[in-house]
């Protein structure tokens, strides 16, 4: 496959190096040792990394819709929730299905795609900001429905326990040091998520250069010109929307399995959707590496930097202050909000944009001035 060969030639060493480093990290958590020595507290970076991998999948899903195809969608959490609850229904003891992780992993994206198709088919012809509102509304409707259909979803309690993936005994034992099964499960999730994420990145970058990927970009840039060239806007948009929804469903399946519960439906609210959008804006809309960077930065801030800063703040204030401003996690919306505003003003292409988007944005700025 010549595409694959040029692909590997083009990506160079960086992603491969990152992949290798991440693959050996659980066995030699260097950062953990260093930070534990410095702060005296175990941070469990490998656990955070699993969350980052899963969140990255979700960010890539939204990137396919918003970044590549230019469909502004503010309700990605709805498809994430579809994936998580599909996995819940298919695997928990309450239901007769109990098909386990591997089956759910195939079916959750299907349900996500179905949701995307059903929402997208009638609404994708709407103008950009109306589509944003419809998807926002859909996200809220999904959350309320999941919350209120208590017979099916167990309402605010969520469906649990979602079982860990089944693995051959040999694999399971080799992943569990000294027979510690909980570490084995964690590592299994780590590698599964890493493999799926890597495969997704490869597929998406191949897609980017494929016929349909170029059609996405053409539509995003100029719908009229693209349709004159024989691209069917409705079909291509629906493909991007459905594809993104399927990927979000897959991320939801991983999320529920990793948490061992679907979590309460209120987790999947508007703010969650916006957090994912935040990742893309910070990393760079339309850029795969940007989405990964954004996901890492955002979760890194929430789970590593924010607790560290809170501890520093508490030490500086001398003791345990219960004041609302003394906990750094209460500042997070100011931090994210400011990041969004500043990025839009100074670097609308994001921190690590794809070269194409960066060029386009600077072109339009020159045109405007």
């Amino acid at each position, binding site marked *: 496959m010549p595409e694959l060969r040029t692909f590997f030639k083009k990506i160079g060493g960086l992603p491969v190096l990152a992949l290798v480093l991440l693959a050996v990290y659980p066995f030699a958590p260097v950062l953990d040792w260093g930070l534990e020595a410095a702060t005296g507290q175990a941070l469990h970076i490998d656990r955070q990394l699993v969350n980052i991998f899963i969140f990255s999948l979700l960010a890539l899903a939204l990137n396919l819709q918003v970044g590549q195809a230019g469909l502004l969608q503010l309700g990605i959490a709805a498809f994430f929730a579809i994936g998580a609850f599909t996995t819940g229904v298919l695997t928990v003891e309450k239901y007769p299905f109990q098909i386990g992780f591997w089956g759910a992993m195939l079916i959750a994206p299907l349900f996500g795609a179905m949701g995307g198709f059903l929402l997208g088919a009638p609404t994708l012809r*709407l103008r950009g900001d109306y589509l944003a509102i419809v998807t926002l509304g859909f996200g*809220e409707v999904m959350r309320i429905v999941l919350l*209120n259909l208590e017979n099916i979803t167990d309402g605010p309690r969520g469906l649990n326990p979602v079982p860990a993936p089944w693995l051959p005994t040999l694999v399971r034992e080799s992943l569990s040091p000294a027979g510690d099964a909980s570490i084995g499960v964690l590592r299994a999730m780590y590698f599964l998520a890493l493999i799926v994420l890597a495969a997704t990145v490869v597929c998406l970058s191949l897609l980017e250069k494929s016929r349909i990927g170029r059609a996405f970009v053409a539509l995003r840039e100029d719908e009229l010109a693209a349709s004159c060239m024989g691209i069917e806007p409705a079909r291509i948009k629906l493909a991007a929307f459905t594809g993104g929804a399927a990927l979000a469903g897959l991320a939801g399946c991983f999320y529920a399995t990793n948490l061992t519960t679907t979590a309460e439906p209120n987790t999947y609210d508007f703010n969650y959707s916006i957090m994912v959008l935040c990742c893309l804006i910070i990393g760079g809309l339309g850029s795969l590496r940007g989405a990964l960077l954004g996901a890492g930065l955002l979760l890194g801030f929430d789970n590593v930097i924010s607790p560290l800063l809170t501890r520093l703040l508490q030490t500086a204030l001398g003791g345990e202050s219960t004041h609302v401003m003394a906990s750094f996690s*209460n*500042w997070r*919306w100011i931090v994210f909000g400011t990041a969004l505003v500043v990025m839009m003003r100074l670097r*609308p292409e994001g921190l690590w944009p794809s070269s194409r988007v960066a060029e386009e944005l600077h072109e339009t700025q020159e045109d405007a001035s």
Partner: protein
Amino acid sequence: MLDTVLQQLLIGLTNGMVFALVALGYTMVYGILEFINFAHGDVFMLSAFVALTLCGALGLNEHSSAAALAGGLLLCIVASSVFGGLLNLLIDRVVYKPLRKAPKLAPLVSAIGVSFILQNVGLFWGGMAMDVFGGGGQAAAPKAFPNLLPATNLLGATSKITLQPKDVLVIGASLVMMTALYGIVRFTKLGKAMRATAQDPSAARLMGIDVDQVVAATFLIGGALGGFASVIYSLYINTVHYQMGYQNGLYAFTAAVVGGIGNIPGAVLGGLLLGLVRAFSDQFIGAQWQPAVLFGILIVILVFRPAGLLGSTAREKV
């Protein structure tokens, strides 16, 4: 049954008036700049905190004298309206104005960012208001807004339908504000300039209209309406919460879309309609389904009649 229907009609009408006032802020900005000012609901929320803080500072509560209450209420309304207007204007100047020529996504995302910042400020404000005026609980908990109007039933104590002075205030004051807005837009020079700018900004500029000034006036008026609405809403609901802007803002935006975004009478119609739907769905379907019902209506309207009930079909400007 008839009593219930009449009562819900009244509740829907009062709620709808508040939605309509907030919706006007969304629709006016959208009419001119074609972007959804996501931060508008949070300007509404912070204005309510201004009124709450004023009430606390003046020591107003249901036991104050009638003169103090009337003066305090008037002061709250003026202060919150001025605050809402100026805050909205400031946000436009600092955040949105530099992005006028940027791609459409930029102001929208910035507005979401501003909304987050304001919500966080509201959270801190709630924490500080407690420090200053006492009262326990968490910073994030809803704050009680003093009941400044007597809670008597105007229809007599035996009537099955409750009509309180605050209902009359909400409906009456909203009508006055809407009439005033209609007067400004319809009959003044500024209003003419606003309508011209909404129709075609560049043509308006060619005709000698100072478009920047019109936009500033739009943000000022929209914010002031939001600030005004926040006081009467807080009086009506009797609580203030840092997330009240988010949900009410979304509902108000829905109202603006239902009526036809950019259309001023449409926003009022949409607000009233949404208020009524909300009241009846709470009564007959269940309050826990409220957001699903309202956003469901939003989706259906956008799919089948994207221009809204009163809007003309607006083509997307490329």
